[in-house]
């Protein structure tokens, strides 16, 4: 009863080839902008990276030269504050989810909420930080009442918590059961010791998870626009507005001065290098199966 219709068979073969072609085309169209962006970044950014870039602050508008050193410093400060908030709380949460709450409804709810929180636009975090810290004039919250590096750091830190929490959980879940069993079989007395063995085994993964969160937050601009605000000069104080690399890139890109554009490209290149390094490292660690051995 074979239909054996030659035309139909041709059509099916043609459709198969067309589908393959479209898939290949899609791949190309996706890879092309990435290549374009990277090439352009390197081309435009490399020429503006000189010693001055890393050591000087921007010159007054109109003057040429200068650098983004204050932005680099400022980003460092902000990320420091963010990490102090985001990493401990995130890791703690991840340990809870993986070790103590596994399978419970509470843990599932927390995990779900963390994932959803990751999708909230970062500008909303900035608005919340502004309402919480920058706006009110009280003495309960430190550094409140004005734009400050602290408020920016808090906004970024809050963004880090869900990411660090989930990656920590994932890394802990990957620790082979054999490791836990070995610890228990040794008669290790309490949950704290077992925990320290598991956490230690997973620590390379956890650290790279933190790096991933760090890199992600390093490039965030929106939450800083009205918290850290930006600063033309050197400042590392938590109590005052502070410059940040992505923020400066944003402002300079929109300015009418070619010189500032040049600086923006340089800053973008620095940022992208940092991020590519972080992503590559994460892939390397995950790929090496660091957790396979129990040592």
């Amino acid at each position, binding site marked *: 009863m074979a239909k054996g219709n030659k035309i139909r068979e041709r059509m*099916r*073969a043609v*459709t*198969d080839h067309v*589908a393959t072609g*479209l*898939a*290949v085309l*899609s791949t190309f169209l*996706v890879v092309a*902008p*990435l290549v374009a*962006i990277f090439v*352009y*970044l390197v081309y435009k950014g490399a020429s503006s990276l000189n010693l001055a870039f890393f050591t000087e602050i921007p010159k007054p508008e109109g003057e040429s030269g200068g650098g983004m050193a204050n932005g680099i410093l400022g980003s460092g400060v902000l990320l420091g504050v963010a990490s102090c908030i985001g990493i*401990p*709380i995130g890791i703690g*949460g991840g*340990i*809870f989810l993986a*070790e*103590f709450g596994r399978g419970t409804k509470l843990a599932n709810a*927390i*995990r*779900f*909420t*963390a*994932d*959803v*929180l990751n*999708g*909230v*636009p970062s*500008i*909303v975090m900035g*608005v*919340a930080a*502004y*309402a919480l810290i920058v706006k009110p004039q009280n003495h309960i919250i430190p550094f409140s009442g004005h734009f400050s590096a602290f408020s920016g750091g808090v906004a970024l830190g809050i963004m880090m*918590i*869900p990411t660090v*929490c*989930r990656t920590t*959980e994932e890394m802990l879940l990957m620790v082979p059961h054999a490791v836990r069993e070995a610890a228990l079989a040794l008669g290790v007395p309490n949950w704290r010791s077992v925990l320290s063995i598991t956490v230690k085994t997973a620590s390379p993964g956890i650290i790279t998870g933190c790096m991933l969160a760090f890199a992600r937050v*390093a*490039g*965030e*601009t*929106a939450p800083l*626009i*009205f918290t850290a*605000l930006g600063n033309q000069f050197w400042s590392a104080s938590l109590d005052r507005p502070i410059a940040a690399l*992505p923020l400066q*890139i944003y402002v300079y*890109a929109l300015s009418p001065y070619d010189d500032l554009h040049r600086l923006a490209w340089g800053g*973008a290149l620095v940022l*992208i290098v940092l*991020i*590519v390094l972080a992503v590559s490292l994460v*892939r390397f660690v995950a790929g090496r199966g660091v957790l396979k051995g129990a040592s």
Partner: protein
Amino acid sequence: MLLCALSIFGIVALIATELVMGSQLTWHQFGMSFFSWGETPLIDILKAFSDPTATQPNYWDPVNGHFSALPFVYGTLVSSILALLMAVPLAIGLAVFLTEMCPGVLRGPLAFVTELLAAIPSVIYGLWAVFVLVPLMREYVNPLLIKTLGWTGFFNDANPTGLGFLSAGVILAIMILPIISSLTREVMSAVPHSQREAVLALGATRWEMIRMGVLRNARIGIVGAVILGLGRALGETMAVTMVVGNTAEIHRSLLANGASMASVIANEYGEASSELHFSALTEIGLALFIVTIIVNALARLLVWAVTRGAPARAT
């Protein structure tokens, strides 16, 4: 440890509280009309929508204390939908290629490339868009569109700057593509091999096998991936702000300047001129918060349903 984990709930509660409290003023004053046309006659809006030369109603008026978020809602929706239209076919095509067609040696590098795309900060996309994409649109793409499709009314150019909804849509598409693609790949990989074999054994071509044995089984998860991409597009701030034109107007033309909910907050929040202005911006932030939470929750549920609770990547 428990406390740390519970902080997640705390954060959500904190943000929600701050946003709700901050929007009280405009909520009491304007109610739901804040998000619709309020006191502006609908007919004026429609006229200004279609006719580029007609005067736009003054939706967002900090000076006179009159606020309507309609142009921003419009801008967010238009740019996001444009982005989805462009990104979804490409993302699925890429996912299909990577999971079913790609020679093994290419798979790793290509997956890495997609991951890199996802990791690039928004502001860098914006920077590239401002100096490369926008001139490209202005010089080549837009004139072509006006010439060929101008008759539809969706492509006319009152002010040829290259900024506008379409440019914002394009850069958004590039940005949401990686996440849609990665998640689609994940759900496609979760389809058991036995399903693929079942289709092949019936005498199917490779594409038929992909269509019937993989995509069909994964379709719920793919919908979830697309919705997640939508969620990302709705809240995307920096790149859109740099490219959309920042004009609180509603135009039919996709080449017109506009603004999005996130972009108006980014532009005006730091220097809001009155308490009412602040409240209006905060209310927009609240709307963004609620919408993205709902969209993301829905998306995660759909993806989870297909991959059955394997811890999802926190991207």
